[in-house]
């Protein structure tokens, strides 16, 4: 199918660490498979440390090695394996056809360069534009993301801008080359709600205009409900449930998804929150079998083995033994967690 922009197949990223038990390897992203189609937004939801950001960085080849390495799987952009590309080829794609809006604009912008220059840089590098053309393009981008007096603002340094403005600059930077695939890593987390609403509308508008695909990484279930068409829920490095957005909120199947939705306070609905007991395990300290088992109210004997993803309906799958009997959505190759020496 030609409208698939990004096809992630069984991607696994491992990190090495030295602990008192010696060198250990942990999988921060474990056999993750996802697709992003043209014009759609796929949200990857999960709590801190579940591997959302590592997933995006792995696809883009931005994991520092050591300590991290993509040890299995592939990420295909329009059918081309990103990991198999050499550095020059990758650079032609990254920042050009695929762009990323990074979390925390405070730390992702260069504090000693004017923002206009930072936006123009990518345009010059990828499109071979002259300085004057690139500067003009930067101003145009700033106008597009709704910054007043763009020509003047292009001359500002990041510290002279508010948080909302900086985030807009990050978006302008990511969009300068008209990417058809956009990774947005918590693009609005640092912002106030009124500014967040403006930024989300902006991303939606740009997507409609260009038909690009967005992989949105977030922990905010409200933002997901408003922007995504499909959702993948991550827990401790694995996708535990994937579904179309309306279905996920109306009929969450995995106990973790259910717990997550029951934990969220809702405006105007006063109810007793039912939090998930316990806490997210660290990746170096994962439980055997199903990783959610120690916190799961429905855990039973079979959960001591790691469940595969079961297909529950069109586009809906969940990693839970409760659904055994449903057709498999992924081949079973899920091994129990092993402490291997880092080779």
């Amino acid at each position: 199918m030609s409208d698939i922009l990004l096809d992630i197949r069984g991607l696994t990223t491992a990190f090495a660490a030295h602990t008192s038990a010696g060198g250990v390897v942990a999988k921060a992203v474990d056999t993750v498979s996802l697709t992003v189609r043209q014009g759609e937004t796929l949200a990857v939801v999960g709590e801190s440390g579940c591997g959302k950001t590592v997933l995006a960085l792995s696809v883009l080849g931005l994991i520092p090695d050591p300590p991290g390495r993509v040890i299995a799987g592939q990420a295909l952009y329009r059918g081309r394996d990103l990991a198999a590309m050499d550095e020059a080829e990758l650079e032609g794609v990254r920042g050009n056809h695929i762009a990323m809006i990074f979390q925390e604009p405070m730390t992702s912008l260069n504090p000693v360069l004017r923002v206009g220059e930072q936006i123009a840089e990518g345009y010059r590098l990828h499109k071979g534009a002259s300085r004057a053309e690139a500067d003009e393009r930067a101003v145009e981008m700033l106008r597009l993301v709704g910054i007043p007096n763009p020509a003047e603002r292009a001359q500002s340094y990041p510290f002279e801008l508010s948080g909302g403005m900086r985030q807009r600059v990050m978006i302008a930077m990511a969009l300068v080359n008209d990417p058809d695939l956009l990774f947005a890593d918590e693009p609005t987390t640092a912002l106030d709600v009124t500014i967040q609403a403006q930024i989300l509308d902006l991303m939606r508008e740009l997507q409609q205009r260009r038909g690009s695909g967005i992989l949105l990484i977030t922990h905010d279930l409200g933002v997901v409900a408003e922007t995504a068409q499909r959702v993948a829920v991550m827990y401790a490095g694995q996708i535990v449930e994937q579904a179309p957005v309306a279905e996920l909120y109306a009929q969450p199947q995995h106990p973790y998804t259910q717990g997550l939705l029951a934990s969220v306070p809702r405006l105007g609905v006063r109810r007793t929150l039912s939090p998930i007991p316990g806490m997210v395990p660290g990746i170096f300290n994962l439980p055997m079998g199903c990783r959610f088992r120690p916190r799961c109210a429905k855990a039973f004997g079979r959960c001591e083995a790691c469940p595969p993803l079961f297909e529950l309906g069109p586009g809906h799958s969940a990693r839970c033994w409760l659904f055994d009997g449903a057709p498999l959505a992924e081949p079973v190759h899920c091994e129990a967690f092993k402490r291997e020496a880092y080779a």
Partner: protein
Amino acid sequence: MSALLEIDAVSRHYHVRGGLLGLKHALVRAVDGLSLTLMPGESLGLVGESGCGKSTLARLILGLEPLDAGSVRFQGRDINDWPQTELRRQMQMVFQDPYSSLNPRMSVGAIVAEPLVIHSMGTVVERRAKTLSLLRTVGLDADMAQRYPHQLSGGQRQRVAVARALALGPALLVCDEPVSALDVSIQAQVLLLLQDLRQRLGLTYLFISHDLAVVGQICDRVAVMYLGRLVELAPAAALISKPCHPYTRALLSAVPVPDPGHARTREHLVGELPSPLNPPEGCPFHPRCPEVMDICRREFPPAFDTSSSGATGGISETRLAHCWLHKPG
């Protein structure tokens, strides 16, 4: 019933220097003529965007910052007339970031016992027993007392911070964004704990948050701040279902709703929060207000009663908005 805390027209202004050689003077009105009353046992939410003065107000109440104008009375007595140690036993604070508000070199037991040591309460043995019972109160095991903050998760750290705040048996707990740094599943655990403690210990909360859904969950009344000013005050359910001030409306409509079927009419706010260095004349919200009138540009609106029937349900039913739209007649 008499009020526990009366905040009367308090202001806090900061002088900042800028320009060449610091010759330019400017005044930041962090909190500007704000009044609020807290009744014993209630939970009052304070919401607003970053930089609106929420945390400054908390510091003023606790006496951590001097007042430039107005007064704060606790149990009918001005906080400046209270002996410092006595006041500190009555009001305590839970800070936003449990990663930086706990001393990394102290064990959990020492952290929780520190207020008892400072206030020379009990013997060593009694303090140890009290510490363990405090840890139990916030849902932590006794063996946590030997651990250090870096060994705890965010949720556990915030529980330690709550235990420390409860050590002296305060009447008022000021919680400054206590769950903002936590993941959703952990956030719900801490919110439940705070709700439960309030019931069991009869605590009064001033609950500062930027998250309206959280405030609606745990507070009886909500005060909305904008650029150092109070803009609206109402019972939580009423504020969320029928906001009166255009700013509250915009704030509520901007909150993303975790329900994909939710039909929304989003009221767009144009522009950004103005700099508190140079706040607009008149109503501070007027440059972004969709319903701005002439008078808004000239005069700050006083508090107008916006309760539907002029109801006299006492302070817990009071609804007011600082907005010319609600001027009677």
